[in-house]
């Protein structure tokens, strides 16, 4: 499967459309081989599809669809609940994600939302983001930037889990050189590590500058759920729902719909006039 072009490099709309058509071609060929039951009227563009046949196909599709919010400069991420809603078998998703993680194609981060949220980012995007942070810090004339190199070489390479203990972090960074506490503060300030309330001794890897999107994620979820709860029968057509825009979230509607379906708050029902999205009452 060919690698998709970097979304950062294609800024113009025309290029994005071309890339999406490229995606659609490759995706349709996959769909053609694996799913023979696609009928004529259901053969929409693969990018408009809600379910995919394979985890890696789903990941690449969703990464291509994430809108670019240039001022936030966050690498494109996909939530694990979105993967659950996109592929039929959850166990298969978990296992394939584990394989991809071990092969160092993607990295999984635990988001501090209070629920079991995990964000998946392709490793290349993440490394580019780290490089961008280093460059920004150089411009601000910060010294001691070797710590980022050691971080990339030793820590990111060997530790594939979303969290790391204090001693292990120290010992892995020391493989590069002498480490002081000030260095770890630098890493936390850059937004690469954080601590969560669960355990005082563990550092968690984070996506840098995720704050605005994270807040948008939480508020967007609440807004979408309340929009559906206000309806009389607590349901809406999917086509109609996708056209609406959320006021409090910079992320698009499809992102939130997939996320809520995967985490079980919403469910889709196939009817004669299309898919209906309903609040699940369990």
């Amino acid at each position: 499967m060919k690698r998709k072009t970097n979304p950062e490099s294609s800024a113009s709309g025309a290029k994005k459309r071309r890339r999406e058509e490229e995606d659609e071609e490759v995706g349709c060929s996959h769909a053609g081989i694996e799913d023979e039951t696609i009928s004529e009227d259901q053969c929409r563009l693969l990018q408009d599809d809600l379910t995919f046949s394979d985890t890696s196909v789903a990941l690449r599709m969703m990464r291509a669809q994430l809108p670019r919010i240039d001022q936030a400069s966050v690498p494109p991420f996909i939530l694990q609940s979105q993967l659950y809603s996109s592929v039929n078998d959850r166990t298969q998703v978990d296992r394939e994600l584990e394989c991809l993680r071990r092969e160092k194609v993607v990295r999984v981060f635990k988001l501090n939302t209070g629920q079991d949220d995990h964000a998946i980012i392709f490793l290349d995007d993440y490394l580019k983001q780290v490089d961008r942070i280093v460059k920004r810090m150089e411009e601000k004339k910060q010294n001691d930037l070797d710590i980022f190199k050691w971080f990339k070489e030793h820590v990111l390479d060997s530790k594939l889990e979303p969290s790391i203990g204090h001693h292990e972090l120290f010992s892995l960074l020391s493989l590069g050189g002498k480490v002081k506490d000030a260095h770890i503060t630098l890493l936390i300030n850059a937004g690469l590590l954080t601590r969560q309330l669960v355990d005082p001794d563990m550092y968690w890897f984070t996506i840098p500058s995720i704050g605005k999107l994270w807040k948008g994620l939480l508020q967007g979820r609440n807004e979408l759920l309340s929009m559906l709860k206000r309806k009389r029968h607590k349901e809406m057509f999917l086509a109609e729902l996708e056209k609406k825009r959320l006021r409090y979230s910079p992320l698009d509607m499809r992102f939130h719909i997939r996320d809520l379906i995967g985490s079980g708050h919403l469910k889709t029902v196939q009817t004669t006039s299309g898919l209906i999205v309903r609040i699940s009452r369990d």
Partner: protein
Amino acid sequence: MWEAIKHRETGQIRSNSFANRFKSRRILSLQLSNRKDFVSPHRGSVNSLQVDLTEGRYLLSGASDGSAAVFDVQRATEYEASGLIAKHKCIFTVDKQHENGHKYAITSAIWYPIDTGLFVTGSYDHYVKVWDTNTSQAVVDFKMPGKVYRTAMSSLAMSHTLIAAGTEDVQVRLCDIASGAFSHTLSGHRDGVMSVEWSTSSEWILYTGGCDGAIRFWDIRRAGCFRVLDQSLTQLGVRPPILKQKAVSIKVSAAKSSLGGQNRLKTLQSKNTGSQIVKGSSSAKASVEKSRQKRLHPGMLSTLDRATAHYGVVTGLKATNNGMYLLSAGSDSRIRLWDIESGRNTLLNFETGRIQTNKAIQLDTSDDPALVFVPCMKTVKACDMWSGRATLMLRGHFESVNSCCFNSSDQELYTSGADRQILVWSPGGSVEGEMMQDEVAEDKDNWSD
């Protein structure tokens, strides 16, 4: 069905598979029973259910109003609606009015595994009491340092009669009925212990799940736990993979060394010296750590292991009957299946939705169509154990469900919840039902103006 009987007669299928075929079909058709009902005397949410292990006849339930009750599952106390509905009233109950009864909620009520002459209850009033069933008297009392969350006794035990009690204290205490005292305590958890379960393959092994999210395996003959389950140690599949041959790795390293030219060797050497210098400092650190570790008893080394099995409290544990797998439910709304032998997460994802987070829940498993019965808020979901898909969704309770108990001899499921009810789920579509339908069909033609 008649085909299956004919095959059995002619010997094409064996008697075991014949019986199992019927049992699986019955289990997959579980629905709220319209023939059987338990009249629950409890005035609080029912926290624990257990059918006795010797006969499978008596059901013991413990509730939040401090009452424990015993029901006869097979014989009804009275019949209603001209013999169609069997009502099972409790045989006896011990509650707050009893002179030695518990003062606060009973969280766990279990039968003595050898016979039904004794049962053990654990409660929020810090006591674990052992009761004599025939006289309804409390025989032994054990005072715990905190609220008791769960008690468990091993069903395989031949040489000990220990009750393992998990409380809000960090230590798990083992109480001995024979001597009336504590035999020993197991330390290692960093927060209270919410679920305790004995192994189904060895009488000495105990699994505990704590409020810190860790699951620890203890051998009670040794000090300290011998394994802490870590959710990031995974295996792709329900059995661990066969180890690759060592010859392959030797070949790879030989190839690498033959490839190295002069430059490569130099860089390798410089890297080695660099790492050696670093190793000097890190070895200093390592020795500091080792001396710190040396101060601890070797059995206590496991307290330094902070691996978590769930991102929250471990609310329920269940070992499968074949002793190979352990199911754990956590307050991060996940059910995980662990391979006991290798101690790894099998990455099975059970489609359960949200699970109750503040209280312990009781899971149960059935063997033949390997199902896990999970209480998810107001419903009970029966998920297939090897694929994780939800096959049955049992809706009947008005409030959240706390515990499920599966009676494999009758293929019935008993569930209880915060709505103070104990519901029976039995296989639908019985033979008598079919016969009744035939009679009604005949009568339809027998009419006149």
